[in-house]
C-alpha cells in the first residue's frame, strides 16, 4: 500500500517514478514538424499560441492520467467503530461420547437426532442471527481444546459448530474446559457484555484446588454464565437430591449447579430434554444478551483508477482531434481565410516551435 496522501493513496507507488515522463509534451509536440528558414516569417498569432498551450496541456493530462491510473489510485477505506447490540460469547461444548446419543439415551436411528446434532443445528442458527456478536468455540472432553479463538467471522464459527456432531471422545472434564473458555475472552474491554455458554449433557466433579482457581478467574472476567444442560431421559436433574449421601461424586450435576450459583456472577441454568427445549433456551439466552457492544465496521476503499483513465482519455481525445486537424505549411495555408484559422494557426504554432 502506498503512503496515503490524506485519505488517498496508490496501490503501486513505485510507478509514480514514471511521472517525470509526463513532462515530455513540454519539450516536444506530437504534431508534424517542418523546418523553415525563419520563424519570424510567421506573424505572431495569439490563437496559435493558445492552441499550442492547450495541446501541451492535453499531452500532460494524457500522460499523467495514464501513469497515475497504472499506479492504482484509491481513496482509503476507513474502519468505523459503531455500537450495536451483542456480546462476546464464549461457547464451551461437550464433545464426550454420550453427546452422540439421543435425548432418550440411545444411538440415533432413522429420524432421531442426537444431542450433538440438535445442538449443532440450534447453535448454528444462533450464530447466524446475531449480527454483531463475537464468538469463540472451545470443546472439551478429557482435555479442553481451543477450536476457534474469539472472532467476528461467522463462517469460521459455523465451521467450528458444524464439527460438533462428529463422534466424541471419552470423558466430561468440565473444570479445565471452563478455564480455557474463560481465557478466550482476552483482556477486558470496557462496556462489553460477556457470556459463557456451557453446553453439556453431564457434569463432573471439580477438584477443590481447581475450584479456587476458577472462582478467581470468574471474578476477574465476570461473564454471564449460561449452562445448557442437555438432560437424557431418566438421568438425574440439576435439582434432584440424591437418595443417599449428597456428595459431588453422587450428584455431580447438582453440585456443579451449586458451584456456579456460588460464583457471584449472573448465572442461569437451562435443562433441556429435547430439541425444542434447547431451541427455547437458546432463544431466552438471545433475549437476555442484548447489551450494546462496540464493533468495527470497515468501509471498503474506493478505487479511483477509472477516473484517472477517463482524464487520460480526455487528454488523448484532444490530441487525436488535433492530429486529425493537422495541416501542413503550404501556400494555401498561408492564404487561409479566418474560417481556417484553427488548423492553420495550430500548424503555424508548431512550426514556430520547431524552428
Amino acid at each position, binding site marked *: 500500500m502506498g503512503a496515503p496522501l490524506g485519505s488517498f493513496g496508490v496501490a503501486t507507488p513505485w510507478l509514480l517514478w514514471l511521472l517525470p515522463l509526463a513532462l515530455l509534451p513540454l519539450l516536444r509536440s506530437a504534431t508534424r514538424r517542418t523546418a523553415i528558414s525563419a520563424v519570424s516569417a510567421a506573424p505572431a498569432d495569439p490563437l496559435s499560441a493558445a492552441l499550442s498551450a492547450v495541446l501541451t496541456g492535453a499531452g500532460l493530462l494524457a500522460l499523467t492520467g495514464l501513469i497515475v491510473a497504472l499506479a492504482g489510485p484509491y481513496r482509503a477505506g476507513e474502519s468505523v467503530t459503531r455500537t450495536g447490540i451483542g456480546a462476546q460469547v464464549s461457547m464451551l461444548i461437550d464433545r464426550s461420547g454420550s453427546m452422540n446419543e439421543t435425548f432418550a439415551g440411545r444411538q440415533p436411528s432413522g429420524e432421531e437426532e442426537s444431542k450433538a446434532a440438535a445442538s449443532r443445528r440450534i447453535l448454528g442458527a444462533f450464530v447466524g442471527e446475531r449480527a454483531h456478536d463475537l464468538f469463540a468455540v472451545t470443546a472439551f472432553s478429557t482435555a479442553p481444546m481451543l477450536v*476457534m479463538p474469539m472472532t467476528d467471522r461467522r463462517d469460521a464459527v459455523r465451521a467450528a459448530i*458444524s464439527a460438533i456432531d462428529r463422534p466424541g471422545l471419552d470423558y466430561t472434564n468440565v473444570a479445565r474446559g471452563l478455564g480455557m473458555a474463560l481465557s478466550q475472552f482476552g483482556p477486558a474491554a470496557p462496556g462489553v457484555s460477556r457470556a459463557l455458554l456451557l453446553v453439556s449433557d453431564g457434569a463432573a466433579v471439580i477438584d477443590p484446588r481447581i475450584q479456587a482457581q476458577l472462582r478467581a478467574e470468574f471474578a476477574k472476567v465476570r461473564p454471564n454464565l449460561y449452562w445448557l444442560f442437555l438432560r437424557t431421559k431418566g438421568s438425574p436433574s440439576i435439582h434432584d437430591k440424591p437418595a443417599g449421601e449428597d456428595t459431588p461424586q453422587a450428584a455431580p450435576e447438582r453440585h456443579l449447579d451449586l458451584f456456579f450459583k456460588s460464583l457471584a456472577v449472573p448465572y442461569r441454568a437451562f435443562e433441556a430434554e429435547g430439541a425444542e427445549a434447547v431451541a427455547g433456551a437458546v432463544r431466552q439466552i438471545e433475549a437476555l444478551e442484548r447489551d450494546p457492544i462496540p464493533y468495527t465496521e470497515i468501509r471498503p476503499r474506493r478505487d479511483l*483508477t*477509472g477516473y484517472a*483513465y477517463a482524464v487520460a482519455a480526455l487528454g488523448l481525445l484532444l490530441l487525436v482531434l488535433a492530429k*486529425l486537424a*493537422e495541416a*501542413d505549411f503550404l501556400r494555401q495555408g498561408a492564404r487561409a481565410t479566418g474560417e481556417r484559422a484553427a488548423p492553420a494557426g495550430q500548424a503555424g504554432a508548431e512550426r514556430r516551435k520547431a524552428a
Partner: protein
Amino acid sequence: MNPVRHLPLGKNLRDRRFQALAAALVLALAAVFAGPLPLTRSGVAVLAVVDITGSMNVRDYTLDGKPASRLDVARAGLRRMVAELPCGSRLALALFTERRPFLLFTPIEVCADFAPLDGALAGIDWRMAWEGDSRITAGLHRAIQMAGELDTDLLFVTDGQETPPLPSTGLPPFDGKPGAVRGLIVGAGGHALSPIPKYNDRGREAGFYGETDVQQENRFGPPPDDAESREGYNPRNAPFGASAAKGTEHLSSVREPHLKALGAQTGLAYAHLDGPDGLAATLTAAATPRPLPGRIDPRPFLGGLALALALAAFLAGFRPARPLQPTRM
C-alpha cells in the same frame, strides 16, 4: 467554405503518431469501462491432521536459533502454509492422538477467515491430547475416511512413531481404495534419535522417558518369526522369550520407512518437514487442484500499452524536422 475540405485528412490518418495516439485513446477508453475478467485459478481444499502425541514434543528442530519441538515447527509450517495458499483454498483442522483424528472445524476459507484460522492453528497444543497412545496407522486410515467425507485432500503431519509398536505382522490392512483421497504425509522430526520429554500431571516437564518407561515391543498377536531363537522361549508360557524387550522406542526420530510404506499403502505422497517453510508448494504439488473462481483486472495491460503508445508519439518529436516540401492535396 468548409475548412475540413482543405485538411490533408488522408495524410493525417496515415500518420504513425496519429495512429499511436488514436490506439492509446481507444485503450484508455476501454480501461475506463473494462470490468474484471473471470479467470479460473487452482487452489486446494485440505484436511490438516496434526499429530499431538508425546513424541511430537521432541526438540530436534531449530527455530529462530532456538531448539524447537516437532509440534512447534509443524504449527509454524501450517501457519505459513495458510498464508501462502491462494485465496479460495479451504482448510479443515483435526488433531490426532490415540487412534483417530478429532475434527475441530470443517473447511474454512484461508483469506477471509484468516485471523480465526491462524489463531486456531496457533492454539494447537499437546495438552489437547485425550489419550497417550499413538496408533498412527489406524489414525491415518480414519483421517483418510474423514477427508473423503469432507470432500477434501489430506495433510497428515506426524513423526511416524507408533506407540505401542506395530506387531510383528506389520501394517494393518487398509480398507479404503488407495488413491481415492489424495494428499500428503509430512514426516516431522530429525533423522537421529532424540530423547522424548516427559510431563507430569500438571503439564510441567519432568525429564525424559527411559528405556523401561515405554513398551519396546508389541506382544499382542502372534510372536515374531525369530521368537524360537530367543532365550527362554517356550511356545506356551513365553512365546516372546523370557527376557524383557530391549530397544530404542523411548527415543524418537522420524520413521520415514514406515511413513513411506503407509503412503504406498494408501496412495498418499510423502514429504519430510525440513523447516517451517515450503509446505504450501509441497501440498499444492500433491493435492488435487480445485478450480477457484478468480478475477483478473485487464486495466494495467490496457493502460500500460496506452502509455507506451502515447510516449512513443511524443518521443517521435525528437526526430529531426523534414525540410519544407510542397505537398499535393
